[in-house]
């Protein structure tokens, strides 16, 4: 096993060199990081390594970049930081990656073994702190263990249900010299994710589908993680099954297809929400019945039987009882389902009822998103976002922050493939977009535009990473939908707190985003009204070799609809502000 040098004298290396050699052995091409005391030994061999290092401006940036990279490429994103405050700066990103099943490897320095537990300078119990927000973690106790720990961490991060794994390495372990060997095989007796679905369950699932009158595919983010776009497309089109794509799955089935009925959930499309409510069968593919999708759980999809495919058995039956459970990688399971279909004649397995499909197509037509954009003057945020899409097009990757702009971006852009839409769904991490877009751009390379669509609140949480983009020549398009508010919070205060606005106003002109663009030495564009939109975006589009900052001054009063109020049944989906006001008035009349 000794890296092919059995018999010859073993190569002597330091623990620090072992870290770098391990990353190289795994084929890691880029790490996002920030140096400091305990990790410094590893930054020395980095100079000569075959590894790109992106120097961030805050460790939260490093982990969100690793997430963005992983999101966009499907490969493990790697970040490396020092002990104590640097490691604790990773916490938000680890929790984010844990929630959204993003494969991330975090390497942290730790104080020397002899100092552990003594409250030494920059000591923090990082494995303890991150235990509940990582898929796994390990405090490395000897240099001989480094390669094994990193190899296992990498494997755990990307296999089964992906997630973040952290490896914490004491400084003296990094400094110690030992005989290097790379463990070709890893030994994890307690970790054996099931990949293939159970044959009997596969047949039962097809049986349920053939009996259903109103079947819907409830497509979740796991399809994106597993790269199952094609299998999903074939499965849905072959059986004529309508598809809803969750916030985490936008694009995994093309929005322009007639079987696409949109996004379900709190701010989903009307047809996406109602398709699930009316369905008699949910073909749940790597989705997890999140409360933002189900609304009031007892009232969710009340007529539906449930098939649930997930690689994580713990998701099956967690929130909703299941009729046919299938544990396995969704890409593989879809392949199995298609295989069984291949062996059947069309007479055995006719596509689902046409009436149901027609019903949903009509519903989509009758209940579109309602945006009223006047011809001149005030710019509606949805108009701005749609124009961004029209400018950068289908080839681009779109990365959102968290808030209203995120929901509008999920709603108005017609996505066509998985990994085209990147956002923080489970944790809802403001500040995600800027660094995640940088990481995504590093992952997809020169030819694919990456466009961040951020909020003015979110942007101010992490825009220091503009310097990272400039220094490392990472030409992301940064858009800020500036409504002068923590808009999503304002919306809730408006709707549920009688419009008593509390601590949600952000001065629209402070900071002056054009001066920020200036300060970072990148082109800045500001769009004040709808009239300037197209010409300004056309100018911005011409810049492809450096980061760009575009600010949209938008109508601060615009709200996100449709909306299912928190805790309400999905049947109570509200489609517009007028409908909301009408309901309030009716309720007042009743009293």
């Amino acid at each position, binding site marked *: 096993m000794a890296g092919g040098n059995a018999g010859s004298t073993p190569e002597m290396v330091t623990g620090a060199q072992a870290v770098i050699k391990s990353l190289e052995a795994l084929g890691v091409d880029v790490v996002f990081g920030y140096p400091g005391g305990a990790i410094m030994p590893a930054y020395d061999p980095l100079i000569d390594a075959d590894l790109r290092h992106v120097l961030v401006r805050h460790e939260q940036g490093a982990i969100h970049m690793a997430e963005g990279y992983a999101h966009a490429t499907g490969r493990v994103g790697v970040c490396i930081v020092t002990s104590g405050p640097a490691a604790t700066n990773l916490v938000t990103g680890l929790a984010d990656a844990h929630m959204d099943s993003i494969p991330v490897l975090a390497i942290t320095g730790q104080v020397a073994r002899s100092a552990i537990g003594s409250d030494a300078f920059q000591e923090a119990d990082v*494995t*303890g702190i991150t*235990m*509940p927000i990582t*898929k*796994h973690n390990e*405090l490395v*106790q000897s240099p001989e263990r480094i390669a094994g720990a990193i190899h296992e961490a990498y494997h*755990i991060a990307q296999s089964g249900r992906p997630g973040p794994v952290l490896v914490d390495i004491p400084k003296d372990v990094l400094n110690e010299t030992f005989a290097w060997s790379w463990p070709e095989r890893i030994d*994890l*007796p*307690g*970790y*054996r*994710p*099931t990949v293939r679905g159970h044959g009997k369950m596969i047949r039962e699932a097809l049986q349920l589908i053939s009996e259903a009158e109103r079947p819907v595919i409830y497509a979740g983010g796991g399809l994106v993680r597993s790269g199952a776009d094609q299998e999903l497309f074939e499965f849905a089109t072959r059986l004529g099954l309508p598809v809803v794509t969750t916030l985490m799955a936008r694009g995994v089935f093309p929005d322009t297809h007639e079987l696409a009925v949109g996004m379900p959930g709190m701010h989903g499309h009307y047809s996406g929400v109602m398709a699930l409510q009316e369905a008699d069968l949910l073909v749940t593919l790597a989705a997890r019945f999140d409360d933002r999708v189900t609304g009031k759980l007892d009232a969710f999809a009340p007529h539906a039987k449930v098939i649930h495919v997930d690689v*994580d*058995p*713990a998701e099956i*039956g*967690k929130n909703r009882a299941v009729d046919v459970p299938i*544990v396995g990688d969704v890409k593989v399971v879809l392949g199995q389902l298609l295989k069984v279909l291949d062996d059947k004649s069309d007479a055995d397995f006719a596509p689902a009822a046409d009436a149901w499909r027609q019903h949903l197509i009509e519903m989509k037509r009758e209940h579109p998103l309602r945006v009223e954009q006047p011809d001149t003057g005030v710019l509606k945020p949805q108009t701005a976002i749609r124009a961004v899409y029209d400018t950068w097009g289908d080839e681009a990757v779109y990365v959102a922050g968290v808030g209203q702009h995120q929901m509008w971006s999920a709603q108005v852009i017609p996505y066509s493939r998985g990994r085209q839409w990147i956002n923080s769904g489970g944790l809802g991490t403001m500040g995600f977009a800027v660094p995640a877009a940088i990481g995504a751009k590093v992952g997809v390379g020169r030819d694919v535009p990456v466009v961040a669509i951020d909020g003015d609140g979110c942007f101010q949480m992490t825009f220091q990473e503009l310097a990272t983009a400039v220094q490392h020549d990472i030409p992301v398009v940064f858009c800020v939908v500036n409504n002068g508010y923590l808009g999503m919070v304002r919306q809730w205060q408006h709707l549920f707190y009688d419009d008593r606005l509390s601590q949600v106003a952000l001065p629209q002109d402070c900071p002056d985003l054009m001066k920020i663009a200036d300060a970072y030495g990148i082109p800045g564009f500001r769009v004040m009204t709808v009239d300037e939109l197209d010409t300004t975006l056309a100018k911005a589009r011409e810049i492809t070799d450096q980061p760009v900052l575009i600010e949209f001054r938008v109508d601060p009063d615009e709200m996100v609809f449709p909306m299912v109020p928190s805790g309400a049944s999905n049947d109570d989906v509200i489609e517009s502000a007028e409908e909301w006001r009408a309901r309030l008035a009716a309720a007042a009349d009743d009293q």
Partner: protein
Amino acid sequence: MNRHTLSVLVENKPGVLTRIAGMFARRNYNIHSLAVGPTDDPRVSRLTLVVGAEAVQLEQIVKQLNKLVHVLKIVELDEADSVVREMQLVKVAAEPQHRSQIIELADVFRAKIVDVDHDSITIEAAGDPGKLEAMINLLEPYGIREMVRSGTIALARGGKSITDGSKVRMQRVV
């Protein structure tokens, strides 16, 4: 809430107990008792967990435990078909006139006298939780100075072992 006894084989790695206890705390599950010790294989420890849960939650507990990388195997033991034991040490006040009565009582429970002082007796007893409860009730009037009780440990009856997994119902789904 029903009590369930889970036998869990885990890799003998640092922090494995913290992972399990932390998972229970974070997901708001109930642990009544937890005992851990070595097995015949030095790489493997065995935990006995007594949890309070209804069926759906029990399934979640088992699945969430299984997600921990260091957890090797989980089996639910049927209490009626298992040997279930706890151990207890009790220091009882023992005035000279009560001494023989206390010793007799210990005998009835097949408990052992493990320490004697001028005015106290320490009794060691093992058994199922009901028996130990009963013994405490009878000793109470003499005055219990202090006591300590272990978590539950249990093994299925019959010749099979957790590592062949045929007799006991395997919970592992992964």
